[in-house]
């Protein structure tokens, strides 16, 4: 094992490049590159790679970055890109198109606050605005989780039981720009791990097809239901991809959720991305003091792991959801998804909105949230836990 000290962006660029190169014996790889803070380092990395059979195209916009991925993927290549914030918003139309075309594209989303006003720090509102697109979404809590999840993402995306694009998200700056020690993957094992990319509806002159012409309601309904059914097959495919990853790389990758100390917990806090990493320390400290408290990290946002969550929440009395995102007029987006998952109305479910615009969510912040939650006898509207840092 060779450990490397690098940024999240570097780790992501490195892993995408290995995945692209791993398809050299098939149709090669291709991607679109367009800069936006804080993901720019990823596309710079990709532009510097000398692929055996691949080209990363320096396009004029995020909309076209995804457009190039779509064209390349329907031509049979392994396709990938990266974006953030307003870039993801600008790309949106083609993000939806990529999923509706059932193309196994992988995109790194480095979460950044949507502007205006301009703010370059982390907020998950950019990728969560794409939650209704036919994409899988994973939120990573560390550099290692990011690297391993990107490899798994290609495997799941290209599995014919799924055949949908995958977004792998990390926190802007906290993950993208911070150096951490990572066990980066290597080409030889990536070649072993990833089967050659096969897009079954690839454009072929031997079998000419028209992709994307008019469909009537009946065919459109079938198409959308096919996507839903593909989403429902993700848990099994992901399990297999994680098992195979362990066989090749000798390490477990987190699945849809990670539950810790939930077995006998009366109080459970739920978070995602690096807030979940901070939360883990808080939970361990409170457990050590004898508190019956646990946590769940939601890594897979789409498909939303409803059954896993309900099981992990078990008989807890109080559940708090921390959201670094906000849907105006509603509340935290993870919270609303958790609320839609809980069948048991007796659970007290409280939403805390924290770290909006990149505010530093410290263990002290989370302790204050945990204190509030354990004292509660009833839930209220989402609470804004102001950070002001």
């Amino acid at each position: 094992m060779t450990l490397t000290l690098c940024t999240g962006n570097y780790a992501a660029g490195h892993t995408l490049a290995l995945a692209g190169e791993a398809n050299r014996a098939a149709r090669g790889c291709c991607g679109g590159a367009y800069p936006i803070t804080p993901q720019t380092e990823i596309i710079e990395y990709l532009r510097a790679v000398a692929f055996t059979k691949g080209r990363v195209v320096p396009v004029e916009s995020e909309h076209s970055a995804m457009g190039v991925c779509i064209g390349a993927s329907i031509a049979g290549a392994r396709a990938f890109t990266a974006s953030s914030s307003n870039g993801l918003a600008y790309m949106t139309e083609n993000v939806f198109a990529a999923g509706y075309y059932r193309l196994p594209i992988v995109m790194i989303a480095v979460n950044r606050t949507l502007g205006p006003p301009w703010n370059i720090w982390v907020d998950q509102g950019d990728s969560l605005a794409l939650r209704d697109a036919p994409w899988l979404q994973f939120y990573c809590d560390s550099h290692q989780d990011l690297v391993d999840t990107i490899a798994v993402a290609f495997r799941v995306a290209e599995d014919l039981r799924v055949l949908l694009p995958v977004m792998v998200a990390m926190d802007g700056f906290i993950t993208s720009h911070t150096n951490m020690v990572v066990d980066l993957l290597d080409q030889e094992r990536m070649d072993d791990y990833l089967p050659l990319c096969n897009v079954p509806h690839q454009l072929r002159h031997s079998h000419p097809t028209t992709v994307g012409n008019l469909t009537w309601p009946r065919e459109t309904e079938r198409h959308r239901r096919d996507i839903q059914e593909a989403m429902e097959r993700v848990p099994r495919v992901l399990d297999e991809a994680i098992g195979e990853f362990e066989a090749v790389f000798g390490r477990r990758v987190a699945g849809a959720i990670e539950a810790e100390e939930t077995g006998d917990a009366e109080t459970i806090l739920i978070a995602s991305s690096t807030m979940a990493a901070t939360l883990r320390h808080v939970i361990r400290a409170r457990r050590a003091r004898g508190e019956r408290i646990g946590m769940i990290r939601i890594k897979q946002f789409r498909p939303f792991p409803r059954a896993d969550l309900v099981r992990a929440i078990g008989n807890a009395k109080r559940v708090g959801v921390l959201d670094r995102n906000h849907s105006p007029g509603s509340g935290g987006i993870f919270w609303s998804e958790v609320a839609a998952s809980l069948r048991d109305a007796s659970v007290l479910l409280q939403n805390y909105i924290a770290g909006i615009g990149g505010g530093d969510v410290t263990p002290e912040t989370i302790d204050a949230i945990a204190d509030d939650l354990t004292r509660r006898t009833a839930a209220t509207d989402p609470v804004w836990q102001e950070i002001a840092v």
Partner: protein
Amino acid sequence: MSTIIADEPLLRPGNTNCAGCGMSIGLQWLDEAFADHRPYLVIPAACAIVTAGAFPTTAYGVPTLASTFASASAYATGVSVVAELNGDPHPTVCWAGDGGTYDIGVASLSAAAERNEDILYICYDNEIYGNTGGQRSSATPEGAMTSTTPRGKAEWKKDMVAIMAAHRIPYAATLSVAHRDDFLRKLRVARETRGFRFLLMLSPCPIGWKSSSDESIELIDLAVRCGLFPLYEVHDGERYTINSRPDGTDLREYLARQRRYAGTSLDPEVARVKIEKQWEFLEVMARLSS
């Protein structure tokens, strides 16, 4: 995804094109010039994708990808890059209307041209958003009535060939459905040229132009002869060749056959001066090129 058997014509019977649509002629001549070079087609939102008909049928006999409105050049970039990486001899052709070319698609088009991607981009310019029922685009000529310019468009048409030539792409040219030999020759030049190629075809639209469908070809002939639609080609953004010069035909003859110009404030004398200015430019460029 709609499937048909191989070796069909590029545009098959059963397509939904209107009578007198210039696109039908253009696609058949594309088929003729590319008979041994069957292309991939990339078509943005336009009449041309409705032409295919509804899933699971298709009127296109070659692999065809529908793109989002602004993205034909970006999707085509991905297709052509992967074709090149794999030694695939089939060319990538964008077939787009004027809305997808002059307006919403101009950024991705300009970028693909600047990168000199190996794409043949053909704009069938019917001077309106035809698929949505005939609204103004920046290709709509001055004076023409559309559903969003009910009193006639006040602005002059955007000069798209000049814009593309300014990218110094290997080949840019205009196409007339009334000049078959010239049309086919230019398609063959484009076919044999690598890099980004742009062809602009004035495409009659009897519905939008409010003209008689049996006069479509004649109308384009008049547009060429009166000088309104010059036939020329530009190599590498600098070598201009004029293929046909005005023969003194009166612009009014062209305008009178289209009710889109009826009762508008277009002054044919003002239009004539603008046409002459464009010709002065073309003649200077052609002289500099010889």
